[in-house]
């Protein structure tokens, strides 16, 4: 309850309109978490793009004479292997850098695919109700009853290993997350008076769904997408941990964790490095999502 509401009118009438885009960018940069998280993600993207240029060694290059060297700072470390090597003499740092390629590709594409599929179904189910909603809801319920890991194994087994299979697997499994949330949010928004107002003005139902309701569902969606990116990275790691992701040649964080687990007592860094990378990446996605939502939502800008 604004106690100074009476002064508000004059202020609003007198002030110049804010510049929307500049305001959003400024709001974005004003949050430390966005700056750090966003910066970190950009850094990872950069690494993924210029991996061949920046990685100190070829990630596939085995040198059995340089096996299980510890990271820099520990006794026995070698200068050229900053994070040490694994049991086959491969440079951990280089493999880590190359691993970002798979991780980020999966993160962005799988999350987008899951979001697209789930959002469309959720929007229609929430807005039209009736038979459409019944079908979609039953589908979601049945789908969610399948154990996700088994389902993904099945999909990868059918499609063969590779990044595409992983992306398809994640999208096919996780769309339900989006569908449920978007459906609930759509149903809530559909009750609002501004939807009735649009109807009274003569707008068609499809137009109302995409012009009025979708922008109001977007903030929730954005948060969910960045969350999903973090999940996708982890799922990929799990799949490559069990050897179902890309071929064992291409370095992936999950694969590194799997290998590292076996030699954890001799060379703990092979296990710890990708784990730390995984942790940092997922954390960054979550923080970025939260910050983005706050900055871009004009209602929350207040």
């Amino acid at each position, binding site marked *: 309850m604004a*106690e100074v509401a009476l002064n508000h009118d004059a202020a609003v009438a007198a002030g110049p309109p804010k510049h929307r885009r500049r305001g959003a960018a400024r709001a974005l940069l004003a949050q430390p978490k966005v700056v750090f998280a966003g910066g970190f993600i950009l850094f990872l993207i950069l690494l993924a793009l210029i991996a061949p240029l920046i990685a100190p060694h070829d990630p596939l290059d085995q040198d059995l004479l340089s096996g299980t060297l510890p990271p820099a700072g520990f006794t026995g470390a070698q200068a050229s292997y900053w994070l040490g090597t694994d049991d086959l003499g491969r440079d951990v740092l280089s493999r880590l850098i190359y691993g970002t390629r798979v991780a980020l590709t999966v993160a962005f594409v799988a999350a987008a695919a899951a979001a697209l599929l789930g959002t469309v179904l959720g929007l229609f189910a929430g807005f039209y109700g009736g038979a459409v909603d019944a079908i979609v809801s039953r589908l979601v319920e049945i789908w969610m009853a399948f154990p996700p890991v088994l389902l993904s194994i099945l999909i990868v087994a059918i499609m063969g290993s590779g990044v595409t299979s992983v992306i398809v697997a994640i999208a096919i499994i996780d769309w339900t997350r989006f569908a449920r949330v978007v459906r609930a949010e759509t149903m809530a928004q559909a009750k609002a008076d501004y939807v009735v107002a649009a109807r009274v003005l003569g707008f068609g139902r499809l137009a109302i769904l995409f012009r009025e309701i979708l922008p109001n569902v977007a903030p929730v969606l954005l948060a969910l997408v960045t969350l999903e990116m973090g999940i996708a990275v982890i799922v990929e790691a799990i799949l490559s941990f069990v050897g179902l992701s890309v071929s064992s040649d291409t370095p992936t964080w999950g694969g590194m964790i799997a290998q590292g687990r076996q030699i954890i007592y001799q060379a703990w860094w092979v296990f710890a490095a990708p784990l730390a990378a995984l942790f940092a990446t997922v954390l960054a996605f979550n923080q970025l999502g939260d910050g983005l939502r706050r900055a871009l939502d004009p209602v929350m800008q207040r």
Partner: protein
Amino acid sequence: MSEALLSVAHLSAVSTRDGNAPVLRDVSLRVARGEVHGLVGESGAGKSTIAKAILGILPGGIRITQGTIMLGGRDLLTLEAHERRRLLGAEVALIPQDPLTALNPARRIGAQLTDGLRLWRGVSARAAETRALALLNDVQMREPARVMRAYPHELSGGMRQRVLIAAAFALDPKLVIADEPTTALDTTVQKQILRLIRAMQERHGTSVIFVTHNLGVVAQICDRATLLYMGKVMEQGATRELIEAPHHPYTQALMAACPRYDRPGQELEPIPDAVLAACRAEVIAFDRAGASHG
């Protein structure tokens, strides 16, 4: 002349979130024992702020810059937190505006009614329950025993408000603050609730501060009233005077802007700009005088 029960003297407050814009400007008022005092004004005038200041529940952004609120010989603004809790639990009660959100939906009515009794009067569960039943009878609740065991969502809005009134009077407080208690209710129920509040007030000899923006309610139920605009007192006095012979142009304009079902097709006159300008000038002059004193 009997000493006032509550005496607010020269209360001023600012909103720290709005660059220290004033929200209350030198407000003074006195409430005698057994008096129903109306705190009237439009939204943003500051009436809720004063009520919250008395109850000690001002939001974080509001800061009191001067003034005292004397109740029972003590200044409420200078009390320690625990002293204030004790005072407010037992001597000042609140009838909140929205009966829906003021009750905990997960607890039965009986439990919520006996809370205060057991906490502040230390009565046993059995005794508290008896008293709660008696109170529900006082507020003319049908089937009080059933209501005791019910959850809030099982009652109508009017019934919930009666429960809140019962809760307010449960500890026999000296002062009850009613914060627009009829706004969320149907018209016919509103009259019943007003009647009830007046009846309870007369029976217990309690003083009531009635916060409202409705001049009709003030006319019918308040003995005296204070009319606020932009945090400043515009006019104050016996209700009869305010309603039948208002002095201040703002009061007069407000009366003229009230629609009345007993008057044929009137052109509702919004408060004339001249009157608002004069009021604002009054407020600005006050601010300047305050500023020059530092």
